[in-house]
């Protein structure tokens, strides 16, 4: 399978930017990616743009051409919407388009503006990723859906709130030096345990924050990189996508996420790797329990063993398989339509050695990105590899 080179990446700081229009956020990330890549904007063949709730949060539909204009691009632009996996899908389709030979240069990424809504309205907006008839009308929210999965996991495999607290502590510790992270502060297990309940067993510190931000990833073909002397030492060597029933009630069980397993199998297969080859990963930890489900679905831990991974130090920065060295969605923040692109950007920086946490993975060559939509009714997995 032909690999696709990551020529450059760009991010905005993640946080509360309610006074900044979405177009400005995305333009900032895009311009940073072009500066990083040394690629001319006129060479871009298309924009693949991820966004989930812009129509609700910013009363702005038809965002893709707006974002192309904002970034100084004159090329076809399409919005991808797959809930919180929107940018992951935008990146995946960019990879597939370049592999097909239809394009040599694609800008992929996304933007989300969420702090324009108060907590109740943001909760309602996020909930539209669930089944409207059978979940939203029954009072299911984004946190409560993951709480239902957490309880199902505990019931099947065991585990307790303190295991989840260690995941939050780890991801906050990883974000301390990340200049793009929303929370560059450490927390303690006691703080996490003492935080107020959102949907039991999940409490406030089990949840990612409400975030504004944008991501941009400039992808080029091998031929374009060679012809233009682009230094791009990191490639996407595998991409995969899986799906599942939208509503939890229609799934075989709720303690595992087969969409992730399907996506990982496809991505690993394309890259010619197995889970044992993965040095580190950025996974979709919208809630602490989601990190557990992700690392098990990716095959990095056996079912039932992911719950203790952070507590036992296996996934900390100095552990065998560091997870979410960026701080993850939990501490870095989760502008939902941008997250999948930001994961690719963080892994690229970690592999190139220009990330504040690169020292934790200085011998690494393989990083995996896992981006999930809703309660993992969609999952996108990418394998990134650095030139040896």
């Amino acid at each position, binding site marked *: 399978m032909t690999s696709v080179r990551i020529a450059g990446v760009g991010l905005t700081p993640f946080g509360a930017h309610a006074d900044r229009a979405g177009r400005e956020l995305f333009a900032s990330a895009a311009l940073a990616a072009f500066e990083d890549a040394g690629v001319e904007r006129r060479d871009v063949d298309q924009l693949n743009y991820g966004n989930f709730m812009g129509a609700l949060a910013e009363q702005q539909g038809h965002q893709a051409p707006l974002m192309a204009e904002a970034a100084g691009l004159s090329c076809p632009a399409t919005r991808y919407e797959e809930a919180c996996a929107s940018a992951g899908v935008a990146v995946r389709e960019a990879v597939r388009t370049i592999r097909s030979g239809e394009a040599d240069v694609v800008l992929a990424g996304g933007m989300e503006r969420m702090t324009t809504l108060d907590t109740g309205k943001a909760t309602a907006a996020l909930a539209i990723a669930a089944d409207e008839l059978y979940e939203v009308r029954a009072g299911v929210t984004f946190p*409560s859906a993951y709480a239902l999965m957490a309880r199902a996991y505990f019931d099947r495999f065991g585990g307790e709130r303190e295991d989840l607290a260690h995941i939050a502590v780890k991801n906050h510790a990883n974000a301390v030096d990340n200049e793009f992270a929303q929370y560059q502060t450490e927390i303690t297990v006691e703080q996490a345990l003492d935080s107020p309940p959102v949907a039991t067993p999940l409490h406030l510190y089990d949840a990612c924050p409400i975030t504004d931000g944008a991501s941009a990833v400039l992808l080029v073909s091998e031929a374009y990189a060679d012809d233009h002397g682009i230094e791009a030492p990191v490639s996407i060597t595998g991409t995969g996508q899986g799906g599942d029933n939208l509503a939890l009630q229609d799934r075989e069980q709720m303690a595992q996420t087969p969409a992730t397993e399907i996506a990982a199998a496809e991505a690993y297969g394309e890259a010619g790797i197995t889970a044992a080859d993965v040095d580190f990963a950025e996974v979709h930890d919208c809630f602490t329990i989601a990190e557990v489900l992700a690392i098990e679905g990716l095959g990095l831990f056996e079912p039932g063993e992911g719950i203790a991974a952070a507590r036992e130090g296996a996934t900390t920065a100095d552990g065998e398989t560091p997870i979410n060295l960026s701080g993850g969605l939990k501490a870095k923040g989760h502008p939902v339509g941008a997250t999948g692109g930001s994961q690719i950007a963080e892994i690229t920086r970690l592999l190139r050695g220009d990330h504040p946490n690169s020292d934790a993975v200085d011998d690494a060559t393989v990083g995996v990105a896992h981006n999930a939509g809703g309660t993992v009714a969609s999952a996108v997995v990418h394998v990134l590899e650095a030139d040896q």
Partner: protein
Amino acid sequence: MTDHTLDEEVATYDEWLDAIEAGEGFYLESPEGHGSLPPRRVCPHSGATDLSREPLSETGTVETYTVVHVGATAFDDDTPYISAIVDFGPVELTGVVRGVDLEAVAVGDEVGVTVETRETTDDRLVVFRPA
């Protein structure tokens, strides 16, 4: 293209709520025995399209639950409340548990299903009560 009309026999979501409310709850069953809930033209498990209406069991068991302390705006006056997914055999239902203390619900509890209204709005709501 052989048929340009929608099949009137296909149950809608509101008809399903009406049936539960009347004590005549049903689910859709495929020839292989998989269950699903309306509106369905295709069984989500088997892909079968010849689905029959079968009576829903009067009671089910709580498979998982959560006590929601931060709800969506449309549930402001309902919060806090218990959300649960209940196993009725061939199908599972999602709804709100009423009639038990917030801390008293447990996986495995036996409950029945009814249709009531939200506290916040007059929208109908799938409700589970102790059997």
